[in-house]
């Protein structure tokens, strides 16, 4: 087939400005007779003789038709009642956030390497860093990491750098299993070892087992609320882990609206996932990881840091700082390889935190607590439903029935309820258990319906 002539007007594309006459003029300025000459350094042997075999070009009309058709095949919280958690939560998203995010100056801006023309981005990162410190009780936060799982990886690697020689890191088994898997991937060639500590009958980390696991370990990481939804006792954990760098992991960021901040209870590093701060679940990404550390650790931090300074006229201004930790300067000895992070998502989280503020963050968290307590009380009234873990919870917990979780959840789905996440997917011996999460978006009516439908499903399965 003949390849299209780039100067013909039939070749024009709406995203590529230059066409026809301009192309000819530019070729003349360059001094070549065709665009093909500009590719002479690519050997003929590897040049394509024809076009790639892919669909398109589509108009917006065709794109809308096809993509919307795909989305319509999903069953999601958009058209079902959702009680899904497991590290991704459905929370209220203020309308103003998307409007602001689509402002060109935020959406299409580059990394703020040139501070004079990026004060908008830099100042908002500085504010976001501050929010994270206020919420976690620690001293220094970075601009963002990829997500909660890789943030935990970065924290483990940071802690290892602090105590040369030790090779073991203690991870609670009740940390999100995807996070633990990701840590395993990251450390596979670095000579480090994970020691997992399980949970007790109440769903909290087994303190005896924890005490026994700390020999030769450089750090311990614990998630709270953990993957089972149970809130851990920070003080007891700190008491059992003398001499280790202590990492707290937070997968449900709104929990910081009501739960004790890890920095005020002896933790050195807090990492987690900011998705719950108004970011839609989006099938897993883009999300936003966060890391906040004690002041003494700031030079070991991965990721971008924005600092305050003055300009030549004495005006307050913001700039990327302590950059010598980063890959573009330190290269092979950098604190991390991270470059592009999750800046726009961090901006959305920043806007959420600003809008809700002191009172709103507490109110969201309190509603989550109350609605969850209400659902649990009603579930306890159903004869064959068990809440197997007695520890205190925030907005998520494990439900157990006499039947396989998938069966019960299938019955709930039939009534357009996304009832939960099977725990057996992650842990052996939990085939009849599933995770249920409740947020401020779940109404009393939805919760009552959930209970009714669940009860009916169990009766039905019994026959």
């Amino acid at each position, binding site marked *: 087939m003949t390849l299209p002539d780039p100067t013909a007007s039939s070749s024009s594309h709406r995203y590529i400005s230059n066409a026809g006459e301009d192309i000819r003029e530019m070729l003349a300025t360059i001094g070549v007779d065709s665009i093909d000459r500009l590719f002479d350094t690519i050997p003929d042997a590897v040049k394509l003789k024809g076009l790639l075999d892919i669909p398109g070009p589509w108009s917006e009309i065709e794109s809308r038709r096809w993509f919307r058709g795909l*989305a319509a095949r999903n069953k999601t919280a958009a058209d079902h009642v959702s009680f899904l958690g497991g590290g991704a939560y459905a929370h209220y998203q203020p309308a103003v956030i998307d409007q602001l995010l689509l402002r060109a100056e935020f959406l299409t801006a*580059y990394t703020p390497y040139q501070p004079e023309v990026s004060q908008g981005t830099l100042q908002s990162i500085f504010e976001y860093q501050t929010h994270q410190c206020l919420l976690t009780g620690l*001293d220094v936060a970075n601009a963002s990491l990829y997500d909660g799982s890789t943030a935990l990886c970065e924290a483990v690697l940071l802690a290892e750098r602090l105590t040369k020689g030790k090779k073991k890191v203690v991870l609670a088994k009740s940390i999100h299993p995807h996070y633990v898997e990701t840590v395993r991937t990251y450390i596979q060639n670095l000579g480090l070892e994970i020691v997992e500590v399980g949970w007790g009958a109440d769903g909290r980390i087994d303190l005896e087992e924890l005490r026994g696991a700390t020999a030769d370990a450089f750090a311990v990481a614990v998630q709270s609320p953990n993957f089972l939804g149970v809130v851990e006792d920070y003080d007891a954990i700190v008491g059992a882990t003398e001499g280790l760098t202590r990492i707290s992991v937070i997968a449900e960021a709104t929990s910081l609206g009501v739960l004790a901040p890890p920095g005020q209870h002896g933790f050195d590093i807090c990492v987690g996932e900011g998705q719950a701060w108004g970011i839609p679940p989006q099938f897993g990404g883009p999300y936003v990881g966060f890391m906040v550390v004690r002041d003494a650790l700031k030079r070991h931090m991965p990721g971008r840091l924005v600092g305050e300074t003055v300009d030549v006229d004495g005006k307050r201004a913001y700039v990327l700082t302590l950059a010598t930790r980063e890959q573009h300067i*330190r290269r*092979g000895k950098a604190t991390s390889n991270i*470059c592009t992070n999750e800046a726009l998502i961090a901006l959305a989280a920043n806007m959420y935190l600003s809008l809700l*503020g002191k009172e709103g963050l507490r109110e969201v968290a309190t509603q989550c607590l109350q*609605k969850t307590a209400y659902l649990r009380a009603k579930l306890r009234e159903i004869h064959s439903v068990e809440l197997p873990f007695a520890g205190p919870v925030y907005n998520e917990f494990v439900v157990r029935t006499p039947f396989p979780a998938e069966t019960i959840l299938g019955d709930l789905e039939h009534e357009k309820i996304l009832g939960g996440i099977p725990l057996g997917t992650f842990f052996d011996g939990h085939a009849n258990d599933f995770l249920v999460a409740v947020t401020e978006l779940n*109404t009393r009516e939805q919760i009552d319906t959930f209970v009714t439908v669940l009860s009916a499903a169990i009766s039905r399965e019994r026959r």
Partner: protein
Amino acid sequence: MTAIAETEVAQKDVAQKSAMEPLIFERSKKGRRGYQLPALDVPEQSLDEILPAALRREEIAHEVEVSEVDVIRHFTRLSKLNVSIDAGLYPLGSCTMKHNPRINEEIARTPGFAWSHPLQAEHQVQGNLELLWHLEQTLKEIFGLPRVTLQPVAGAHGELTGILMVHKALAKSGNARKYILIPDSAHGTNPASAAFAGYQIKELKSNSRGTVDLSTLEAAVNEDVAALMITVPNTLGVFESEIKAMADILHAKGAYLYCDGANLNSFVGIARPGDMGIDVIHSNLHKTFSTPHGGGGPGAGPVGVSESLVPFLPTPTIERREDGTFYCDFSHPDSIGRMRAFHGNFNVLVRALTYMRSMGPTGLRRIAQIAVLNANYIRARLRKTYHLPYDAPSLHEVVFSDKLQTPKDVHTLDIAKRLMDYGFHPPTIYFPLIVSGALMIEPTESEPKEELDAFCDAMIAIARECEERPELVRSAPHTTPVRRLDEARAARQPVLRWK
């Protein structure tokens, strides 16, 4: 723009001072609120009964209380302090600041995508799985490689993924080896990623063309070398024409060829990495495939692999059954594991696939053609005014240096700052490291000729200023909201939060 060019160094005026916006914490006033939730509709229990006080926090000290009006004003004013691609050319080399189509934003916000949850049962998310499968097929075709993982969420993440796969493949054959070879022109993430994958780095010196000599490579490759990581074309925009021969040298010693695909914009649709002997490549969807830069992310860094590396791909992979349904395959015993929770940056992948369909095969090819045309046009217009340290033909980007301006004690940094007065974001400066005072310019294919001419006119005007009034350039910028920040102070006395 000429009026601004003739401005003398001036004091900041009141209008510009008021362009600065206080911190949101400074705007906060007790009692303001920016939200409303529905009233609690379940019977309220005592908090102490739900959750003991010892596990709860006090109020969030110093957190803000602002109205929705405050928030809109605040962020709108902040946005006006930024430059962005929607407003004009962003000639940042190696960043591919191209147009961000808005249909991508609309499609990503489709509720069926935005509200899908990553742990839902497969039958509930067939639309998503099919989308991911189609994206992989399209990237396979673009790369010319048999499989692609969509999990990595950035280029550096993709690099780590790729090198971990190489390590595992070699370990499985009995020897993971010790070194990764990296040219001195490489982006900093390359050695950082290699180090995190457990390798040591050996740096290869570039030749006078800015490329890697075959003899240099041959001397360096032995059975301790796991791979060579190169950028194609390299960070000077020069295509390594010997790429197939390089692949052969590496393969003969059982080593792999990793390609940093940051510069894919220069040859997408013209040639395919798989045909060059490349074994593993990452692509930056937030560069070549138009997903917006967002001030520093989110991105996506899918990795394509040759047949021998397929068993080591991150788990799960997305597969299609004979009946046309899709599923996640977790049965990969040799997989390097999971690179991240869930499925990667799904809604960035959605934007990228929307773009690929908007371009189609003809559009993708045109991207490379016009990107290379635009960059060479700038090169032709500026080569008499600025020094070209490397003479070799370049593709989609061009690197100049400040050598012709330094005799007047004006440097790359000054030129970059002066460009701001002309309304442009500066190009990438001081990278690649092999060029002293580098100015790396990549216009991309989006830019119309008028914008390229305006940029070149500005650069030429600045060069004249360097000759005639160098102090004007040295003290630039003059018209931005802030000027020449004290970066030493920011690093010596770090203030990283309000209060």
